[in-house]
């Protein structure tokens, strides 16, 4: 079912009582737990710019608007959103906010929660509300914006969003630094941290992923520098003291963005493993060991250094049966969590999800679900066992 406006969505909710899966442009439907709903509710037709005032660096758009369209419009004014979630070009802004998906730019621009100024939503009970507003500072009322951001549509459907924009940097360039495998990762990270840098992002890219992305088959730091020319030049000079820098075309980040779609395997598992940034070397080793001991290659890892977040991509390997794939992931799911750290699984085969603890099993989460979606219709179960009557 396609809905084309907030009003038609409300009408649809009142006329249909069955559970449904909310769909944007359908580019990332593998994310989250399986949703036992035969109906798809597409909000992709609710699209277009409602208001864009470049002087305010803010924009209000309908939720089905695609990132590619937002990017084209804002770049004409020398601005950008600065969000780069996986597979975002074809995806919709509503889906990005609902899933709180972020990419490497989280280092400098912030997470989705830091960029969204206001939201219009239709709750599962059909009530339309507008949280936040169009201005960059706003503390009026309880924060419905943060409530729906990352809720995976379990509390309702996002229909319109107001966003904070940034001016494009005067210079935007990327360099890569190959890491000598004989030196421990921790030593590389310490040398890096001792530099006074202010980049757009610093990604640690594992050897197998680096090779897939056209770099040499070694781990790399890939650094995106932005700002005025003296600032970028100074940072490039600091980085060059660590080793030979390789200039990397800007298209590299697009390749990172579509990497998981480009692998083209029948099955895919994706996890985000996190801990404090100072633990990154240990956690990287821990994750690598947990996967290597259970699963056939290849697998791919990258990390946003300042956040201590590792993104792990585990494709169905050639020659690996479905059964072996599931068995390997079941084993990994039980060993990958680093001591004191966290794992958020984005994609898994259906049979592995039962091994993953629910993220919404607590009374407050169930209280919110009961309030916003009393009939349990909106993406039921996508975050974990929902509230039941």
């Amino acid at each position: 079912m396609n809905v084309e406006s907030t009003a038609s969505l409300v009408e649809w909710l009142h006329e249909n009582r069955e559970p449904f899966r909310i769909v944007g442009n359908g580019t990332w439907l593998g994310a989250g737990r399986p949703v036992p709903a035969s109906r798809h509710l597409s909000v992709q037709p609710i699209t277009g710019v409602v208001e864009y005032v470049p002087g305010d660096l803010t924009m209000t758009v309908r939720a089905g608007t695609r990132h590619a369209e937002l990017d084209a419009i804002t770049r004409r004014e020398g601005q950008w959103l600065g969000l780069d979630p996986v597979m975002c070009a074809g995806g919709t802004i509503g889906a990005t906010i609902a899933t709180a998906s972020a990419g490497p730019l989280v280092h400098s621009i912030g997470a989705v929660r830091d960029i969204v100024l206001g939201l219009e939503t239709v709750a599962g009970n059909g009530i339309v509300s507008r949280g936040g507003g169009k201005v960059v500072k706003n503390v009026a009322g309880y924060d419905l914006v943060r409530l729906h951001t990352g809720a995976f549509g379990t509390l309702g459907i996002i229909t319109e969003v107001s966003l904070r924009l940034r001016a494009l940097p005067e210079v935007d360039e990327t360099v890569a630094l190959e890491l000598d495998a004989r030196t421990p990762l921790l030593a590389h990270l310490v040398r890096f941290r001792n530099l006074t840098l202010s980049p757009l992002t610093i990604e640690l890219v594992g050897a197998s992923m680096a090779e897939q992305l056209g770099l040499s088959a070694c781990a790399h730091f890939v650094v995106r520098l932005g700002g005025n020319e003296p600032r970028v030049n100074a940072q490039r000079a600091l980085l060059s003291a660590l080793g030979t820098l390789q200039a990397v075309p800007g298209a590299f980040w697009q390749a990172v963005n579509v990497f998981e779609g480009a692998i083209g395997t029948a099955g895919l598992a994706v996890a985000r493993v996190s801990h404090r940034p100072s633990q990154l070397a240990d956690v990287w080793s821990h994750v690598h060991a947990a996967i290597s001991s259970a699963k056939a290659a290849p697998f791919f890892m990258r990390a946003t250094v300042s956040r201590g977040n590792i993104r792990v991509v585990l494709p169905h390997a050639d020659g690996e049966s479905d059964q072996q794939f599931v068995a390997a992931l079941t084993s990994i799911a039980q060993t990958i969590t680093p001591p004191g750290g966290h794992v958020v699984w984005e994609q898994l085969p259906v049979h592995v999800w039962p091994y993953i603890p629910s993220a919404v099993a607590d009374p407050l989460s169930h209280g919110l679900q009961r309030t916003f979606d009393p009939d349990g219709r909106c993406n039921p179960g996508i975050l974990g066992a929902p509230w039941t009557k």
Partner: protein
Amino acid sequence: MIATLPQELVAELESIVGTRWVRKRAAELQVFDADGLPGYRQLPSLAVLPGTRDELIAIVRALAVRNIAFVPRGAGTGLSGGALGNDIVVIGLNRLTRILTIDAENGLAHVEPGVVNVNLGRAAAPFGLQYAPDPSSQSACTIGGNVAENAGGPHCLKYGVTMNHVVALTVLLPSGDLVTFGSPNGETGGYDFTGLFVGSEGCFGVAVDVWVRLVPLPQAIRTLLADFDSVDAAARAVSEIVATGILPAALEMMDNATIRAVEASIYAAGYPVDAAAVLLCEVDGLLEGLDADVATIERCCHRHGARTVRSASTEAERARLWQGRKKAFGAMGRIAPHLVVQDAVVPRTQLPAVLATIHGISERLGVMVCNVFHAGDGNLHPNIAYDANNADESARVHAAMQEIMQACIDAGGTITGEHGVGLDKLPYMSKLFSDDTLATMCAVRNVFDPNHRSNPGKVIPVHSCREWHGASPRSAP
């Protein structure tokens, strides 16, 4: 003790914290009856001041058992009529002042709610770090209060507000249950309870401890003062500076009334008293490239008619320029016995029009509005010094504030950017939000505090929340 509380409860509270830390007499309670905003004085029944986390937990559980309403309170600097209540128990958090951890390597601090904002900054500085949100009241206000109000400050233009810096919390729900939101060790999945709790104005419970993000102190800072012949020109310079792509650490504006108030006070900062407006602009970050930013900002200011643009050449000069801005509210206190400090936000491009409207309102109603504000964010603080004992003047001030708020709403803005709704902004909530949105907010509150015992009567107008009808502030319906 002003209103009757069960004697057994009073005795239990005294046994938890000691009699010294329970305030019962009217004279003792008057220090808890306001938050710096004239017009809102509400006397609590009792104030209890826990000295440890365990005492705080025991207090909230003792109140929960008896269904007694309470207000968590930090330093009482909120300026919205938020942390106060008639015939209620105030839980003062000022004794919970321990900085539990500074994890310099990861840029994190773990603090108790009563830690004073500026003290956290001082503790972080030796590690080359800072806590960025810097409300003008930072020498007194607490992190717990900052969390409750989602406080901002001049440097939030670049660094973000409190919400952007809180990574985890331990929260004591009004029921007495302890819950943990977020984690200092990365992302946990599930709903963003941390984001939801920050800015909930004490209505969802009490923050027992808070993990906040610290950011590196900048390698270099440049502070500029530009003065203009018109407020309009200064506002247009602000828009152009931001449009260049430079993100200043702060971009503050003061109008002539404020300049004169500051210069006549002990906080005199050397602002030109004949200027219609001054812009205080600060850029920070890596040393390299900073001078290029300064040159760009100077060009923007001159293009919009700046008479002079000067740069602070020493740290002492920088501190002096900032002292004038940070103490502007205090300086206005010299003009008249009372000062109403307002807080609203408009889209940045609407600043010239809204400032002109405010000027018109002040002329027509015969009140003196002093504008000092975070221009880069569009966050206005139109302040009026007056004599609250003069009924006619008070009425005109009240009317002016109503018209100013309406002008900000009409311009596409909002009624508070950093002070919160409290009691003061309640009448404007239904102008800003639909009935359904307000009812939704009520429903969210019910998840945390179904009996509305934690800071009752704040944020959402009573008539917007059916469940509130007939509710006494001291007991559940």
